[in-house]
């Protein structure tokens, strides 16, 4: 008996040693994650536990910080005593840190992993890659299916149908759209879609890169379309007082029938007691005859350039981009979002399936990262403030566009 145990122990040790030979990860690894909501937090803790089992020689320390707080803390974290792995976002949002040399160039990892080609652009600056994606999610119009059925209206495909629907909804004493613009970014979503549908994805990106003036007639046309909805009274009143969560009760209570938001809102709608029969999702309707672009922001992992254990950090980044891990962490009961790796599979969830379908087959224009990630930080801040003002006082448009043009002239020097 004893000999069997000894043999077993010996073989385990040997296999362990063989395993460690290939990877030989040891020492400490510090991770700071902003996945602070309950479900993402559990995912992150699960990832670390799993990675720790694969590399027993590694001592992993995980620190989870508040998602909104992290936006202010990241600078300090990157400059003084940087950890080995952090969470952040793609596109322009990582620009300042990349340009300041605070993010590690991880182009070498991109050579090793497969299935991420579709999003490579969002993580590329100066032809190098600066992080890896772990999840993304679609945006679209989430609506009350039961109220639509009651009023006898259907998912619209064009803006005319959208407005006709909205008139029916308004006549029934409800508002068409819930929105909370206190923290500004929700208004950015409406602008993204209206602009991408009015002028196309490429024009939207030109605007984001500062190549088009804000006072351009095409931009004015976007606002004119927006104004049609505002003048109808389509949006809930006093939306500048609410956060996006505070505006949700308008939809769950049936006072507003739809919400242009990301897929992360589904969990809150379900928590508020709506069943999947009561909520549904449709792609933002077409306006002009342009290929449809979609917002689908990517969340990412990065290695600070001052990290101590970059070898372990690189292994971790490879680990979270593998198809299996991405399938697992994005499942409906985990993050409830879409995996980025093309080889992974989407969880069988009504909204994830619809979103995945939409992004793979019907986003012919291209995939945007969202207003505050596509536009440079300062332009985004000034822009979203102007968008909020436009939604409350549409008559101020000339003044707002003049100010945004001034900001553009300074930001893109």
């Amino acid at each position, binding site marked *: 008996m004893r000999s069997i145990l000894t043999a077993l122990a010996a073989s385990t040790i040997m296999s362990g040693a063989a395993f460690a030979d290939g990877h030989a990860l040891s020492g400490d690894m510090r991770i700071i994650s902003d996945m602070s909501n309950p479900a993402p937090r559990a995912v992150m803790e699960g990832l670390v536990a799993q990675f720790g089992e694969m590399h027993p020689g590694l001592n992993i320390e995980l620190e989870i910080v508040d998602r909104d707080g992290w936006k202010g803390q990241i600078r300090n974290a990157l400059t003084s005593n940087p950890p080995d792995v952090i969470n952040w976002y793609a596109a322009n949002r990582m620009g*300042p840190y990349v340009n300041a*040399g605070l993010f590690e160039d991880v182009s070498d990892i991109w050579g090793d992993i497969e299935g991420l080609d579709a999003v490579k652009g969002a993580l590329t600056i100066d032809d190098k890659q600066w992080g890896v994606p772990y999840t993304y999610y679609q945006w679209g119009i989430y609506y009350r299916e039961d109220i639509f059925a009651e009023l006898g209206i259907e998912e619209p495909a064009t803006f005319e149908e959208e407005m006709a629907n909205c008139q029916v909804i308004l006549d029934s004493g409800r508002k068409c759209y819930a929105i909370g613009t206190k923290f*500004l970014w929700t208004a950015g979503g409406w602008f993204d879609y209206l602009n991408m549908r009015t002028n196309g994805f490429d024009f939207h990106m030109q605007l984001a890169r500062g190549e088009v003036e804000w006072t351009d007639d095409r931009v004015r046309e976007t606002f004119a379309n927006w104004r049609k909805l505002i003048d109808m009274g389509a949006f809930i009143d006093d939306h500048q007082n609410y956060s996006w969560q505070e505006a949700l009760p308008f939809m769950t209570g049936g006072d507003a029938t739809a919400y242009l938001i990301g897929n992360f809102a589904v969990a809150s709608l379900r928590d508020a007691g709506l069943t999947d029969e009561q909520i549904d999702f449709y792609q933002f309707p077409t306006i002009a005859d342009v290929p449809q672009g979609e917002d689908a922001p990517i969340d990412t992992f990065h290695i600070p350039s001052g990290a101590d254990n970059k070898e372990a950090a690189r292994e971790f980044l490879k680990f979270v981009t593998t198809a299996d891990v991405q399938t697992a962490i994005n499942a409906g009961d985990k993050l409830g979002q879409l995996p980025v790796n093309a080889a992974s599979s989407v969880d069988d969830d009504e909204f994830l399936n619809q979103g995945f379908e939409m992004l793979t087959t019907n986003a012919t224009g291209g995939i945007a990262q969202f207003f*505050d990630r596509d536009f440079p930080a300062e332009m985004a801040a000034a822009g979203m403030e*102007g968008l*909020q003002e436009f939604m409350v006082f549409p008559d101020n448009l000339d003044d707002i566009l003049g100010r945004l043009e001034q900001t553009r002239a300074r930001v893109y020097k």
Partner: protein
Amino acid sequence: MVNAPAVPDTQPPVETRSWYRRNEIAITPWLFLAPGLLFFAAYVIIPIFQSFQVSFYAWDGLGDLQESGTFIGMGNYQELVSDRNFNISLWNNLKWLLLYLLAIPMGLGIALFLNQTVTGIRLYKSLFFFPFVISQVVVGLVFSWFYLPDVGLLSIMLSWIGIDGVNVLGSPNTATYGIIAAGLWPQTAYCMILYLTGLNAVDPEQIEAARLDGAKGPKMLWYVIIPQLKPATFIAFVVTIIGALRSFDLISIMTNGGPFGSTRVLSFYMFEKALAEFGFRMGYGAAIAVVLFVIMLFFIAYFLWSMYQDEKGAR
């Protein structure tokens, strides 16, 4: 082998005291002050000068100032002059300064009202103390619910008298006043506490004498009580001015600077430009901080001057 003197030493050498021993009286206070001075220098004085320095640069706050920043001289200040958001912040700061001073007379009024011997007065006093005890964050939250359109207590009460659709925090014309009103609540309580203490120190003999001379009501208050409350008034003035200038938490909680940036003050605007989510203009933020510092310096100089005058008078 020790070379000891053969005869006893009749003249033992004077025990030389150490340098520290000799200067003990002069040095000890500085030793006690040293930690305080050190921290004051490291966290207050030096950063002030660093702000001045940073304000001459275009710098995103990442990396080293000398390497990643560009010297632009007075460029940031020139931009401030034409920056409309800066003007809004400056005006709002002025509104805060003026309206916040209302806390002083209101605090005095409540203190006079509470300065009586009636059964249960301790309970009333503690009720008036209450807003001073709770955190600014809670005050901000409570007031933003109070102001909520349609469902807030304020709009319910206004609807009783036929006024509908008031959205205090959602309108750029009223939002700042709404926040100041919320701030006045704890600030008034603070001034009241100061005056209650001051009233305890009012000389009963002078009151008696004034009463014999026929003074009462407003005259008694103006000519006898208030002059004796001068130290309390001074402190109330100091804390109220400082409180108004550093207003930040209420704005951040109640409106986040909105709607459309209409409730910003200098400190909040500085935070937005230099440190917040989309703030990558450390130099510009530093320039705003310098302006705020100059405004504060004006008051600080006045405070120091009047304290100096007091000291001279006391001698």
